[in-house]
């Protein structure tokens, strides 16, 4: 133990820690008030591959309930013929976010996020006018839209319902919420709020400040080695108006929002909720385990000239690192792989409208 070596660097974060560190038990996340019929409709839509252009992908293809709505991959899959250049983020507590996507380029609401995911050419590549007519061909939807007060199936109603379903995806019964922390986790919590300084960004009930930071996470070379990923990246960078996008070989993160130099390679602080279900970590999945994440920060993050000043070597010893990991694990709660979050029925069929000529479209 070298208690003095980290004393000065611990001072700044220590101030924050005093402000933020309270009792071992955190405030559990409050679910939003959601219309059950609307959310139920959204749940069925979430698992329906007919929401993608070639009917190959549902929202749930990448956002899988048994992995807290991630996919277990470093870099996500994507639409037929391309692959993604980022890690699938969890949807746990997604309705509480202030901005979406790792770069935060969507900053309005879940309805817009849903539309973007469904229509984006390298994601679900869906013409929503066609999607609407698909939904109208399924009597289950006709009834569910009506029950949800949305009238006939429409793409606007579908987005509203999917957003409502996502609002129901709220963490439950994590040890941090029930107060059921082990001794190691309690020691880790003190480090989290103190010496390790994690809390300066991972704050609040979701353990994120909803801001972007550069922590020096290293590039994932797979993006440039795999042309299907690189193609998706080029499509994205071009659309976001990034200069010289054909020769760009780095993910500039939130730079795409304001195109300012200091925003380069900044990414939204991810929530630490449900971490045990959401490996691998970071926006590009380059860290496989929580141990690796702690090692990363203990080493002062990665090399980057624009790295956040607060990211410095932490000088944690092995048992402190282990305690910190224990605490991080205590932020994960019940699995979402339950009937409340999963549409179990394989009932995605179209029905022929028999009296076609007499039925209004």
């Amino acid at each position, binding site marked *: 133990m070298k208690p003095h070596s980290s004393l000065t660097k611990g001072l700044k974060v220590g101030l924050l820690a005093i402000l933020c560190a309270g009792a071992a038990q955190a405030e559990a996340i409050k679910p939003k008030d959601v219309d059950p019929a609307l959310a139920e409709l959204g749940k069925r839509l979430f698992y329906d591959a007919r929401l993608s252009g070639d009917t190959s992908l549902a929202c749930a293809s990448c956002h899988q309930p048994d992995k807290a709505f991630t996919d277990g991959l470093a870099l996500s899959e994507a639409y037929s013929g391309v692959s993604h250049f980022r890690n699938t983020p969890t949807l746990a507590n997604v309705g509480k976010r202030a901005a979406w996507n790792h770069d935060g380029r969507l900053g309005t609401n879940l309805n817009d996020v849903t539309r973007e995911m469904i229509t984006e050419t390298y994601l679900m590549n869906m013409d929503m006018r066609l999607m609407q007519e698909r939904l109208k061909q399924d009597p289950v939807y006709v009834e569910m839209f009506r029950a949800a007060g949305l009238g006939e199936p429409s793409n606007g109603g579908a987005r509203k319902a999917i957003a409502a379903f996502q609002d129901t995806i709220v963490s439950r019964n994590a040890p941090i919420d029930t107060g059921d922390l082990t001794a190691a986790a309690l020691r880790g919590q003190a480090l989290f709020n103190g010496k390790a300084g994690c809390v300066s960004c991972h704050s609040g009930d979701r353990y994120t400040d909803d801001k972007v930071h550069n922590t020096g996470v290293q590039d994932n070379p797979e993006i440039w080695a795999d042309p299907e990923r690189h193609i998706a990246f080029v499509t994205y960078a071009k659309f976001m108006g990034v200069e010289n996008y054909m020769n760009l070989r780095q993910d500039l993160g939130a730079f795409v929002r304001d195109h300012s130099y200091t925003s380069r390679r900044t990414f939204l602080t991810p929530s630490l909720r449900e971490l045990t279900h959401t490996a691998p970590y970071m926006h590009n999945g380059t860290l496989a385990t929580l141990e690796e994440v702690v090692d990363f920060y203990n080493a002062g993050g990665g090399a980057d000239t624009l790295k956040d000043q607060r990211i410095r070597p932490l000088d944690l010893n092995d048992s402190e690192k282990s305690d910190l990991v224990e605490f991080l694990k205590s932020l994960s709660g019940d699995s979402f792989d339950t009937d409340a979050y999963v549409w179990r029925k394989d009932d995605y069929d179209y029905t022929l*409208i028999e009296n076609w000529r007499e039925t209004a479209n």
Partner: protein
Amino acid sequence: MLMKSTVSVVALLASLAGPAMAENLRPDALAPLDPPPAPADNPTTAAKVALGAKLFFDPKVSGNNGMPCSACHLPEAGWAIQDPISFGYPGTTHWRNSQTIVNSAYYGKLFWAGASKSLEGQARSAARGAVAGNGEDDLMEARLAFVPEYRKAFREIFGDEYPLIRNAYRAMAAFQRTLVQTDTPFDNYMRGDDDALSEQQKRGLEVFAGKGNCITCHNGPLLSDEAYYNIGVPPSPIWEEDPLAQITFRFELYAKGSTEEMYRHTKDDPGLYFRTKQKADKGKFRTPSLRYTKYTYPFMHNGTIETLADVVEFYDRGGDTNEFAANKSKLIQPLGLTSGEKEDLVAFLESLSGPEILMEEPDIPEIAPLPVAQQ
């Protein structure tokens, strides 16, 4: 039967000329087909055609990397699809008959209702439509940039730093302008070879220009006046049989622009209406060329008529009817053809097709990691 005053002068004169045999009739309204024009902003070159041929068969020019132009325009199926309704993008069906690429070079407007003004524009629309290629320009353009062979070809042909998708459409159009047939028996006959048509085909030509009145709309070297008519083709039965077709039908009404009333109650393809938004244009489609029809069955915009003989029967009975009957052309009247005349007419129509145009599918180049450009 009584000739209507609306019948063209040519047809009238032809019919008055009587059934004199072996006169080697060469109606002024018809002509052999010359090589196709190319637009001044997209001259045809051998290199461009070779590139266009690859792109025509390349699934990269689609949303899912799986639907090249050739998916619905198969060389061995008349450069079309020999089903009533064209394939759609995966998860969908189309809603109209796939038209042949052969001789598409000559049309002033493309698609059944003339929605595109050029082959270049048609390529783009087909690559992007939700029930066709469902591609998005940015992504398709990115895919092309990852093909070393394409980077080289687009640089040499168009001067592109990286392939531009609009130049892909230009190359495809240039390739399609080579898929023409100008030496059918009919062409040879019209150029003076009296023996190019059989006696039966010559009799069929007389019916075509006279009693059958076909020539009123099917004229010029293309045997199309490129105008739009409602001839009373009935709606496709697919809309009463296939849920996917019902989906696409409503999607087309919605996407192409309809009033609420029209969206709710239309049960047939409004055709030209989508371009003009005039009620009088509902159910109208462009007169198709009759060339290459030996290979492009079934016929009509929705493929509801199976053979050329059936087409002749259709016109002989004065067409059928559809939802937009008020717009049915007055030119379409019962013809009173004898069975011999019908056979002659079909024989003549067959003279409008030469040998089948086939080609070996080119090797499709693959994507590879993209090197950083030398600065």
